[in-house]
C-alpha cells in the first residue's frame, strides 16, 4: 500500500468519525425538551458536510483499488468511534466493548498482512 493511499484511508476515517460524532450529538439533542433546533440543525448540517467529504475521498479510493482491498481499513472506525464517543459524548462503554475493539484491531492487522 502506497503512502498516498494510506493517507487517503486515514483522511476518510477522520471525516467518517468526526461526521458521526456531530450527527450523534445532534440526535441526542432531539431528546431534550424543548428541542434546541438551532443546535440540532447546525450540528447535523456540519456532520453531513463532513460525511460528504468522507464520501468523495472514499469514491476516489474506489477508483484506484478494489473495494475488498480498501474496505477492511474502514475497520479502524469502530475503534475511533468508541474512543470518540467516550471522550466527546461521555458514553460509558462496558469493558467488553474495549475487548471487542482490541479484536477488531487484531482483525484489521490480519487483513493488512494477508
Amino acid at each position, binding site marked *: 500500500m502506497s503512502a*498516498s493511499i494510506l493517507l*487517503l484511508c486515514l483522511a476518510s476515517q477522520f471525516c467518517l468519525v468526526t461526521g*458521526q*460524532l*456531530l*450527527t*450523534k*450529538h445532534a*440526535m*441526542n*439533542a*432531539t*431528546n*431534550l425538551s424543548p428541542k*434546541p433546533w438551532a*443546535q440540532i440543525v447546525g450540528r447535523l448540517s456540519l456532520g453531513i458536510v463532513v*460525511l460528504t467529504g468522507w*464520501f*468523495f*475521498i472514499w*469514491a*476516489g*479510493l*474506489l*477508483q484506484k483499488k*478494489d*473495494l*475488498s482491498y480498501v*474496505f*477492511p481499513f474502514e*475497520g479502524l*472506525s*469502530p475503534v475511533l*468511534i*468508541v474512543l470518540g*464517543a467516550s471522550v*466527546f*459524548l*461521555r*458514553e460509558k*462503554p*462496558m469493558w*467488553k*466493548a474495549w*475487548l*471487542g*475493539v*482490541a*479484536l*477488531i*484491531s*487484531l*482483525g*484489521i*492487522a*490480519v*487483513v*493488512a*498482512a*494477508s
Partner: protein
Amino acid sequence: MDFSQQIPTRSVMSSTTSQRWRQLPWWLNPYLAMALAILFVPAAEMLLKRGAMATALHHSTVAGLGVDVLSSGWTWLAIVCYIANFTCWLHALRYLPLYLAFSLLSSTHALVPLGCWWFLGESISLGRWAGIAIVLVGVVVIAGPAMKAEERL
C-alpha cells in the same frame, strides 16, 4: 470542542430513551432501523464501485477525489441507498448509544466482502477472510452484552 454540552448524562439518557422507544410502533423500533441501515451499506458500496469502475478512465481534475463518479447512473443509485441508510441511521441514533449502533453497523465488514465476491467477482484470500472473521467476533463481543443490558432496562 466539547460535544457533551447540554447533553444529559448517560444514566438519564439510557433509561429515558429505552423507555421511549418501547412505546413506539414496531416499524419505528431502532433495532429494525439498524438492520435496514446495515443492509443499505453493501448495496450502496457495490453500486458506488460500479459507478467508480464506469468512470475510472476519466481522470479527475481534483487530485485524489472521485468527483467524476457523479457522471454514472450507478453512482446516483448508490447515493439513494446512502440517503436511505442515513435516514434509518439517524432514527436509530435517537435511541441507541453511538458506540453500540456503530458496532452493529460494523457487521457490514462481512456483508460487503461477501457482496464483492458474489456480485462483483472480486477475489478474497483466506487470510483476509480470517481477518474479517476476527473483526466480526469483535463486533459480537461489543454488541452482545450491550444489547442484553438494553433489554434489561
